[in-house]
């Protein structure tokens, strides 16, 4: 039945005369100005992210990463977090720093079954800890590509999402980020642009944060 309607449909669609002329975007002027006016990627990223209610922490040169994590956990009253095992987060060594300071962080590897992992994400974790593949200066968005080392629920189910983003991973546009991810035969099963915390204004146009996803989005720029 499936194939029969597919073929019928294709017969219907093919051979229909078309008369539209195609105008494809070719010049910079059809893109938002931020697309080609990249004054400073980092400052643009931080400015946009803050405008989208995201919280940015920058590591100042004198500060130890462990101290910074400590500060974030204290600022937001976090005591239990679950972390992904993606390369960005591993390379930053943040999870180890945090553990050395006695903060309770479990990683997704510790969960053998989907069921126990999901349960922990929904009931246990106050915060989800992930790396970000890219930051987008144009919109202040994070790009997260999910895989076996980076589960989807970590940045979605807990009330707080903390993302670690190395400064050299900030790119100008969505296109620049996507070009580095797709087309190498390993397209991620899911990829998400995260721009600020979960929000809604569905009741009487009153805006509030934390509808289904995290109430807070914290980006740690290193």
């Amino acid at each position, binding site marked *: 039945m*499936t194939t029969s309607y597919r073929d019928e449909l294709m017969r219907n669609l093919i051979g229909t005369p078309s008369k539209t002329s195609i105008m494809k975007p070719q010049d910079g002027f059809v893109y938002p100005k931020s697309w080609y006016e990249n004054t400073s990627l980092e400052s643009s990223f931080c400015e946009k992210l803050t405008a989208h209610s995201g919280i940015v922490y920058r590591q100042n040169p004198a500060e130890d990463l462990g101290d910074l994590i400590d500060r974030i956990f204290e600022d937001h009253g976090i005591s239990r977090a679950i972390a992904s095992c993606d390369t960005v987060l591993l390379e930053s060594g943040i999870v180890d720093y945090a553990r050395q300071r006695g903060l309770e962080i479990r990683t997704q590897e510790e969960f053998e079954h989907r069921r126990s992992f999901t349960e922990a994400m929904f009931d246990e974790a106050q915060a989800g800890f992930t790396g970000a593949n890219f930051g987008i200066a144009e919109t202040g968005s994070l790009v997260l590509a999910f895989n076996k080392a980076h589960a989807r629920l970590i940045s979605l189910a807990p009330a707080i999402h903390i993302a670690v983003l190395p400064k050299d991973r900030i790119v100008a546009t969505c296109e620049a980020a996507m070009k580095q991810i797709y087309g190498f035969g390993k397209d991620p099963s899911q990829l998400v642009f995260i721009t600020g915390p979960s929000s809604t204004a569905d009741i009487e146009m009153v805006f509030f944060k934390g509808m289904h996803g995290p109430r807070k989005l914290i980006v740690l720029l290193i």
Partner: protein
Amino acid sequence: MKITPEQFREISAEEMADKDTQSLLKRLPETLVTLRKTSFNDYSDPDAARRAGAGIRAGALEKLPHLLETFEKKAIEKGATVFWAKDAQAANQHIVRIAEENNISYITKGKSMVTEELGLNDALMANDIDVFESDLGEFITQLLESPPFHILGPALNIPVARISDIFLQKGIIDTPEKDPAKLGLAVRRFLRAKFQHLQMGVTGVNMAIAETGSLMNVENEGNIRMSKSCPRIQVVVMSLEKIVPTITDALFLLRLLCRSAGGQDLGSYVSFDTGPKKQDEIDGPEQLHIVILDNGRSRIYRDPVLREVLRCIRCGACINICPVYRKIGGYPYGWAYSGPMGQILTPSLLGLDRTRHLYGACTLCGKCKDACPVGIDHPKLILNYRHRNALADKTLNGAGVSWKQNAVDLACAHIAAHPWLWNIVGASLRKGLKPYAHENVIRKGPAPLSDWFKYRDLPLPPSASFHSQWDRMQTSHSAKIRQTKGLQK
């Protein structure tokens, strides 16, 4: 489609008398229009951006069969299944079958207009499968069993007290609550329990990308991400025109979509799904089922004038700017698609005989056309529907006009084509209608014209026609000149 032309007028009148509706309509559309316009200032040439958007959509439609085949091939390669549904019944049956085969007791849904079009909720519930709408606005309208009021905020017209009442009644909260954020939190808690044990999620799609076989969704709440990430089975319904050729095209339209819908540069979450989860991933769907829906669209596609309808990316810019919507709100339209978007889409899907009220309720002011980020000419399409309905067009189920109306039209055409006749009729109407005027406005007329005045008022015409006034002016003017010249001599 539950609403008839008569009901359209009735519900419109009710809504125009409704205090809550009118108070919202005074604020919401204008706010969204302002946000949209401001956000388009990001472009150094907003019109060029819109033209490019039109080009991408028109180009995608031109290559539609090829793009659909490429998309299907890529999606299957990545591990998804693709089902081609001729109509709502076929799509619903397929989705119910997936649910039954997997012993599903309930599903959650992301906000999706196409599943409204399908009537999917009813089909699932008729088979004892519970449905939870997970967008906050949709969740509320589902409890209240009311249609969506606006594409972005389906329940924005519902006062908080009524939401509190229905939540109490359904056990979502225990004590009355006036704070919207706390009501939202209660829904968060309620739905989290559903998400946590979710086995099957159903969503629509904003765009389907042919080159990678990916599906894109835009949202702010996170309910779509939940409905896609938690369950073992993910079902995505896409109407066949949702396709775009490349990621670059999708990103270009994404910017236009977010700005046109809510004045955002990007929604909180934009997710791209390419196949089900990989075997070694701990979460994500094990099965990804894609339903590609026709439901009358291939018929629209074959029509060279109507094909433009399929460019629509459902941003809602036309709704916010429409002077008719801004008076009557979303209820009278009676189906998934309201405002000018619905007025051009619904008639071509359901037929002209059943949707007279939709293409009738338009002043042809053209504001929707100016706001559209993909260059749809709504007034042209609406005029086309009126024309084809009068001609009893077979492909669109045009109803035709009555012999009486036809006779009147022919008489009018004859009069308009003969100046001497026109002058006589004009003069007698000017005289004959005078007694019906009240304060210089005519609101009713004698028998053959009474129908005409049902929908329109006419300012009292001047007692003399333009031509005769002109002639008189010319005569007196030349007399004056002669007089002046005579004096000079």
